[in-house]
Structure formats: C-alpha cells, structure tokens
C-alpha cells in the first residue's frame, strides 16, 4: 500500500471512530475504507447511445452488458470479477437485494428487469473475468434520455447527489463529437470534481470513431486526427486529461469474434472487389443483396449488427490483404479499433495511479460527510477531522502530480519528458525515467540526477512563464521522490 493510501486510511479510521454512532455515515466511510485497496472503479458515462455498454463489452472481451437499438441501460450497473456469475438487483427503497437469473442467449448475457427499472437503484453483475480484476466497470444510462427519471439517474450517479457508498473513482466520458452538446453534459465535471474525480480522473473517448466522415475506409485515421486536434485544444483542460478515439462496435466484435462470422466475412471477401463495394454501399443493399448466396437475410442482419457497415468494409479489405484466420483478423481489427490505445491509457494513466483517485474519492466523501452530518460526539471532532483531510490533500505530492499532468496536457506543446517524469506512463521509477524496467539501480540513479539538474534549471529559468515554472517545480519534487526511493506504484 502506498503512503498516500496509508494516510487516507488513518484519517478514515479516525472518522469511523467519531461516527460510530451514526450507521448511515459509518457505512459510507467503511465502504470507502474497504475500497482503498480494491480495484479502481471506472464509470462509463455519456449521452444516449454513445456506446457505453458496447465499449464495456470490448474492454471485458465478452458480451456481458446488453446492447441494442433502443435505449438499453436504464439502471446504473456495476460489473466486477468474482469466482462465479451472479446478478444482484438493489432496490431504491432499502428493501433487501434480490438475485436475478443468469441467462445467456447467443453468447450474450441477458439481464431481464421485467419493468422494475424504475424501482432499482443499482445492478451488480459478478462475472469471472481477468479483465475485471484490476477495475470495476460501471455502466450508466444516457444523460439525455427522454424517459423520465433515467437521465436523472445518470446525472445523480456522476454528481455528488447519489449516496456515497457506490460512486466511481474515475470516468471514461464517451462522446460522438466534442461539441457544445456534450460540453453541456461535461458540466457535471464540476460536480464530479466535488467528489474528487475532476479532469484528472476523466478520459474523453470518441466512441464512434468509425462513423466520423460517413464511415469510409479511412474513418479511423480521420478520427485519430480529430482526437489529436482536440488534445491540443486548451478548452479541454476543464473537462478531461486526454482524448482517445475508439471504434467501440468494431472493438467489441473483434474481441468476441466467432468462427462462423470469420467464415462469412471470408466468403464475402472472396467475391470480386467492385461487387463487394457495391454491396456495402448501404446497410439495406447488403441485407437485400443476392450474393454470397449462402448468406440468409437473418445472418446478414446479425453480421451488420456485429460489425457495422464500416466494420464489414474494413474486415473484407483486411481478409483480402491476407488475414487468413479468425485470430489474425481479430487481432488486426482490435489494433485498428483503437482499443489497445484506450487500454494503455486506462492502464498507465488511471489504474497505475489508482491509489491517488481512490484516496481523492474517499477524502471527498469524508469531506461531504463532515459538511452535512453533525458529529454524534460534538463539534470539535469534525473541525479536527476536516483539518486532517486538508493536510492529506495538500501534503500529498501525488495530487500535485496529477494536476500538473492535466496542466501540461493543456499547454498544447507535447512536453514528453515532463509527462513521463510526472508518471504519465506509469508511476514506477524506470517508467518515469524512460529506462528499461530491468535497468541497474546505478543507471536509474544517474538518469534521475541528470533529470533533477535539468528541471531545477528549467524551474529557475527567468524566461519561463509561471505555468511552466510551476510544472517544473512539481517535476523536480517527483524526481526527488525517485531518488529518495518513494515512487513505486
């Protein structure tokens, strides 16, 4: 456990002693304390049909979140690793949770709420999966749903309104385009900041990268350019730490590709190219097409639902260029979908700094408890606790590092070394110094001393503006931490 987690735990323990007589407050605090060592809680948020459940499936590599044409996710649903599958529904009114049957249909998990969505506060899905070991994934309803109550549930979950027991530590914010419409949703970022997530804990995902510019073959390249442009936009600093383009549907399908689907794509690719291009001009043309003859309409529809038109265009092109088996095609599709980049960002930028986000969430929750619930033992305790929270928040260099990373991002010019030293590629000493992970301790020390000298000079450079000098100061402290052997992660 990191020093920060230890300090946070100590404050929570003291608070628990104070609030022992108040069961509701104690439950919140205990939940956060127990979570300090647990997996990072990653929420997927965004507008209606932004592809939150699809991306969740892609990240897990299995179809466990229901997806479809109509609005699918109407209740906040947490997915976590467990030895055996189980679905638990937690009602709003405090009655005991009930278990729902675990049903599979055509390789996908089916969650049948039977019209009880209105009365549920949360769903919990336990699912044996290695991908869920380091993180809990939380699927949320669309924030602009037309159904009364559904949008409210999403907003409540992401803001501080919801009970503090089950908030998220970080957020993947899915958007189709970063225009005002989505920025309006990003207003909850301010509320999220209240619970400690803020821009440092938010990653924006361009989730329909394959549809940008009409779904042409080069759509993903266009999407990457768009994301690069957004990353250089200083206005984004208020909302997120970085922007990643992902073709969610493609990623989900690639990670769960079936042999029959590969066979169908191979058949399709074996017909002359002009004919295939003609067939794939529109979804309707493909559905009504006369070739390949073996393909029935139902199967065509299933293929479209799985790949999307752009995905089929891409998959047939890849097969024609030499993807000879199902595994090869899946790997190439995953690579092109941008999923690997997203996983890398989640791994190095969020999960690796998990203790920072968990501590922030816990301290935020404690702050709200102190603010709203009077201490059962009188006023002196809360003031003292508030001071302790403040001490941890201001004293921990980890928070300063995260804020500096976001500030660095907003400056536009890629300052590769500063980003790395602040832990942008992971908090380990070698990752920070850009050295191979098996580097000799003396080499690491040498690199660190070099960096220290360089960044001290940068911090004192009279030509540097204030923001730059601030970043340099934080970097210097980070390098001092490496030298003192503090960083490890």
């Amino acid at each position, binding site marked *: 456990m990191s020093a920060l987690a230890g300090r946070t735990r100590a404050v929570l323990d003291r608070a628990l002693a104070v609030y022992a007589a108040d069961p509701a407050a104690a439950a919140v605090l205990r939940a956060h304390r127990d979570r300090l060592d647990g997996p990072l809680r990653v929420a997927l948020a965004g507008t*209606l049909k932004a592809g939150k459940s699809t991306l969740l499936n892609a990240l897990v590599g299995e179809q466990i979140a229901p997806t479809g044409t109509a609005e699918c996710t109407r209740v906040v649903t947490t997915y976590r690793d467990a030895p055996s599958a189980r679905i638990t529904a937690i009602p709003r009114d405090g009655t005991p949770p009930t278990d729902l049957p675990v049903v599979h249909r055509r390789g996908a998990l089916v969650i049948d709420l039977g019209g009880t969505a209105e009365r549920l506060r949360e769903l919990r899905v336990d699912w044996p999966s290695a991908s869920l070991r380091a993180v809990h994934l939380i699927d949320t309803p669309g924030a602009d749903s037309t159904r009364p109550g559904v949008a409210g549930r999403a907003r409540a979950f992401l803001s501080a309104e919801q009970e503090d027991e089950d908030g998220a530590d970080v957020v993947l914010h899915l958007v189709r385009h970063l225009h005002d419409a*989505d920025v309006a949703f990003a207003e909850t970022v301010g509320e999220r900041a209240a619970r400690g997530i803020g821009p440092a804990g938010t990653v924006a995902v361009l989730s329909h990268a394959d549809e940008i510019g009409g779904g042409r073959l080069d759509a993903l390249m266009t999407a990457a350019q768009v994301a690069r442009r957004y990353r250089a936009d200083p206005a984004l600093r208020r909302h997120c730490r970085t922007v990643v383009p992902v073709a969610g549907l493609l990623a989900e399908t690639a990670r769960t590709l079936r042999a029959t689907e590969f066979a169908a794509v191979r058949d399709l690719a074996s017909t002359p190219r002009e004919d295939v291009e003609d067939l794939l001009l529109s979804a309707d043309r493909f559905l009504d097409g006369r070739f390949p003859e073996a393909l029935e309409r139902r199967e065509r529809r299933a293929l479209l639902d799985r790949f999307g038109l752009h995905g089929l265009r891409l998959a047939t092109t890849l097969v024609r260029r030499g993807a000879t088996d199902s595994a090869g095609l899946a790997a190439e599709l995953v690579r092109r979908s941008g999923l690997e980049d997203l996983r890398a960002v989640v791994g190095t930028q969020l999960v690796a700094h998990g203790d920072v986000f968990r501590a922030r969430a816990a301290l935020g929750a404690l702050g709200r408890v102190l603010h709203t619930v009077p201490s059962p033992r009188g006023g002196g305790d809360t003031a003292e606790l508030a001071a302790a929270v403040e001490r941890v928040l201001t004293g921990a260099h980890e928070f300063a590092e995260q804020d500096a990373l976001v500030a660095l991002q907003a400056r536009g010019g890629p300052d590769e070394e500063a980003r790395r030293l602040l832990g942008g590629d992971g908090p380990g000493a070698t990752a920070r110094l850009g050295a191979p992970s098996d580097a000799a301790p003396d080499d690491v020390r040498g690199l660190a001393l070099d960096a220290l000298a360089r960044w001290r000079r940068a911090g004192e450079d009279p030509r540097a503006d204030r923001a730059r000098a601030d970043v340099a100061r934080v970097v210097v402290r980070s390098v001092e931490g490496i030298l003192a052997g503090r960083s490890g992660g």
Partner: protein
Amino acid sequence: MLGEVEHRPSTTGERMTTTTTTTGPARTGRREAAAVLDAAVAIARDLGRDDVAASLARNGSRLLDPGARVLVVGDYKQGKSSLVDALVGADLCPAHPDVATALPTVVAHADEPYTVLVGAHGREDVTAARLAGAVTARDDPAWMQAEIGRAVPLLAEGLTLIDTPGAGGPGGAPAAAVLAELPAADAVLLVSDASRELAAGEVELLRAAVAHVATVVVALTRTDLHPAWREVRDLDLALLAERGLTVEVVGVSAELERHGRTRGDTETGRELEVASGIPALRDLLRRRVVEPGGRRAERAVHRHVAEVLGDLRAVPVVELAALEGPERARELDEALAAATARAAATKERSARWQQTLADGVADLTSDIEWDLRDRVRQVVRTAEETLEEVDPAQVWDQFEPWLAEEVGRAVATTYLWAGERTWWLAERVAAHFADPGSEPDRAPVPAGRFTAELSVLPELATPDLDRMALTQGLLVGLRGSYGGVLMVGLVTTLSGMALINPFSVGAGVLLGGRTLRDERRRALRRRRLDARRVVRQHADEVQFVVGKHTKDMLREVQRTLRDHFAGRADEVARGAAEAVAAATGARDLDAQVRRRRTAEVRAQLARLDDVLARCAA
C-alpha cells in the same frame, strides 16, 4: 399523418419508376392566378383606373411570391449540410467530417448562380473555398450568413432551404438562434442521426417548432450506415405520439444520393437515388410545403382580385343602364344607390378600422415591452442568484455565453409572440372590410414576418475580475503586519525591549494574516457587485435596443396597414363618384355615339365578369 411516408428501398420490388420532378397542380395553379391578375390589371387600366391597376399589381405579386422557407435544424454533426446538398442534388453547403457549420446558409433559386457572404460590413461574392472557410472554420466572425443561389428543380418550384448551425443539445431548451428563425419558416426539417432515438433536446426543439410552424418533419440521416433505422424510426414515432406531437419521420441517406448522382442515369444510379429516400423527402416537401403554399397564394390572389373587380364593376353597370335609356331608369337608380351606399359604408367603417388599428398598435407596443421586461428580468434574477454563490473571476468564461444564450432566447420568444399578435391584429383590421361571414382579404398583412435580429444585441461587458496578485497580497499583508509590529512594538519598548522583538513580530504575523483574509473577502464581494452591475447594465441595454427595434417594426406594420386600407377606402369612394359621372355623361350622348359606347361597355362588362367567374372557380 404519422408514419405516412413509408419509402421502401428496392427490397419489396415495388420500385418507384418516376424520379423526375413532379410539376403538380401547384405550379399550374400559380400560373392561372398570375393570368387572372394580369387580366384584372388590364381591365382596371381600360377603365381609366391606373391607381387600382398599380395597387392590384403590387399586392398580387406579393401574394404570389412563393418563398416557402424550410428551416433545417438539429444537433451538431447530424448531417444537416449534407442533407441540404442531397435535396438540392449538388455539392453546395460546405460539410466537414468534424468541424460543424457555424454560419446559417440560405440556399434559394436563382437563374444566375451566386455565392455570397453577408456581414455587418456588407455583401461579398466569394469562391467555394472561401465559403467553406467562413462557414465551417468561421475564420472571420463578422460574417453573419451565407447565401447560395442556383437554378435547380426543387428550388425553382419556390423552395428556400436554410441550413442552420447545430442546436438542441441535452440542455433541453432550443437555441435562441433557431427560435428567432421560426416565425419566418413555412416548414421545419429536424435532422437526427439514425443511430439513436430522439434525445430530450430534440424533442423540445420539435415541440417549439410544432407550436409555430405548420409543417414539421424529422429526417433520420445516415440510414446507409444503420440497418436498424426502421426500428429507430418506429421508436421515434411512438415517442412523438406519446408526447402528442404530430410529426412525420423520414429515413434518408445523403451519402447514397451522392453515389447515385455520381453514377448518373444508370440503373444502379437510379436505384441508389430511390434507396436514399431523398426523392421521397423531396416529394413530401412538395406536397406539404410547396403545393399548399401555392394553393394559398392562388386563393389569396383570387379573393383579392374578386373584391377589387367587384368594386370596379359598379361603373360599367351604371353606365350601361344609363346608356340603354329611360326604360332602365329604375335599375340605374338602384345601381347608383348601391354604389353610393358602398362608399358611405366604407367611410363609416374607416373610422372603425382606424380606431382598431390605433388601439391595437398601442396595446401591442406596451404588451411587447412588458413581455420583454418580464422575460429579461427573470434571466437577470437567475444570473444574480448564480453570481451570489460563485466567484465571478472563476466562472465568467462559462457564465458569459450562458447569459448571452438566455437573453437571446428571451428576446427571440418575445419576437415570436409579437409576430403572432401582429398577424392577429392585421386580420382584425382586415375583417372590417370583409362582408360579415366571409374570409378577410389577406393582401394587406405584411407577410407576417416578424423575426428577431439577435445580431443587433449589444455585447456583454467584462467586469473587473482582477484577482489579487501575489505582490498586492503581500503589500496588503505587510500593511496589516506593519501596524501590528508598530503597535505591539511601541508598547513593548516601554518595557525596555527593541521595537522589533518576538512579541511585536508575532503580532505582526497575526494581524498581517488577518488583514489579508479580510482583503480577500472584500475583493470577492467587490467582484460579485461588479459582475451584478455588468449584468444589470447589459439587461438595460438589451431592453433599449430591442424596444427600439420592435417599436420601429410595429410602426412599419401600422404604416403598411394604414396605407393599404386607406387606399382601398379611396378606391371605393372614387368608384362611386365615377359611377355617378358615367351615368350623367351617358345621358347627354347622341344616338350613334351611344350605340358604339353601349357595345364597348358591354364588352368591358363581359371581360370583367369573365375574370370574376375565373376567380370564383
């Protein structure tokens, strides 16, 4: 009717063979109305009434102006510009895979093609590349609108398409810019991506559109990419029915139309064109916007011509009766009496309609002012409440656009309401001239276009947001600590210590910190006060500018109505006088001239009755 437009692409075999433009009854109807108008003008001139001929021609051409404006609205990046291009069948509106349209673009018919940018500093002919720069990148913020004119079939039928910047996000309330355009629109086309159901913001936009515009259609775009678009359409229809909104939903694909167009007149090309759903949408717009517009114009022209010719008819009727001699003396008397009575009645009415108009405009002016004041006051109140809770220095960047949008929406709503009230007033005045029970003549109503010009709104000033700089803070702190050091130091020197001693320094630190805290609090209060002052000042300026604008507009309306109705009253009076003169003149003619004149007047009357019959048909 909900779901009426069901276009099935090639699947079911029932292929639509005709994709050529339907001429339809609208155009022939309008041609006939124009012919009737020309005949009536010629008759008026023959009768020596050039004044009537001129006013007929003027009013008639205004009534015949098609100007069916279709407002294309929707959220960002739903494919509005691409849809306009597809409807027109040419690449006109600049579309970008990521950057959204920022300028409204008006696409209308023109025999000579043009592309112009309109801004505060005038109009300028530009190239397509320059247009793309201005519309998508908004490289020069002074441009307010782009206008494109082309000779293509759909536009030639009298349709004008207006491509708007995105609006209608999850915030719920429709954007002010769209609200401001609603009064001038004959139809609204909401563009929504076929990948998902309608969002809350889009439903709100539809609700506003349905309340003010006769025809509202939802176009689901990119149906080529989404196999489930029919399911999405059914979900949308169910949702709209649930909300009581009568809106049609049509699936279209601009991309397929483009493919079809590039392949030209081949079998695949035609097939793609039909599958794109664009021809079906064009037909829908023809059926719901162009043709009813044409029929309305036709009916209005006929009614106007009938009324004016009805007045003119009195002269030849009286003259003929006088010419035909004493045996028709009674008929003559009756006709003369009728003409005089009509003139008298008009004179009597004229007092009443002038009263109605004057009262109506006075009421309207005060109502509009009150309405605007009320709406702006509510915005100001919310703004002040917000400012009370935050530090203006931190939130001003977000606060400013929010306030501009809220004020814009308040102003646009006032205009919407004012436009409707003006229309209603004009109808009431017109009713004074119509015979009881018949529909009033619409000719005088100044097209009912009462649009908000949001571009004239003043800009919000920036309050003094200087946060305390570090040096300033130090100075303030020093001032406090200096006082502390001095005060305690002086006292302690009495006990034989130096001025700077541990006690005095401690007091200095204490007091310095305190002064700094107080000063910070004061600075925040000052910032809040200053921000409130700026907001109030802005509200005053907006009310001043908009008040002046609406008053000018109302005065214009009043002038138009007064001139029109006063002219009509004059025409009627002059008609009665001429009838008397014609009757007197006819008595003194010798037999030969009388015979020739009788034939002439008969012919005149026959032509007149013929046109009247055509109007009644």
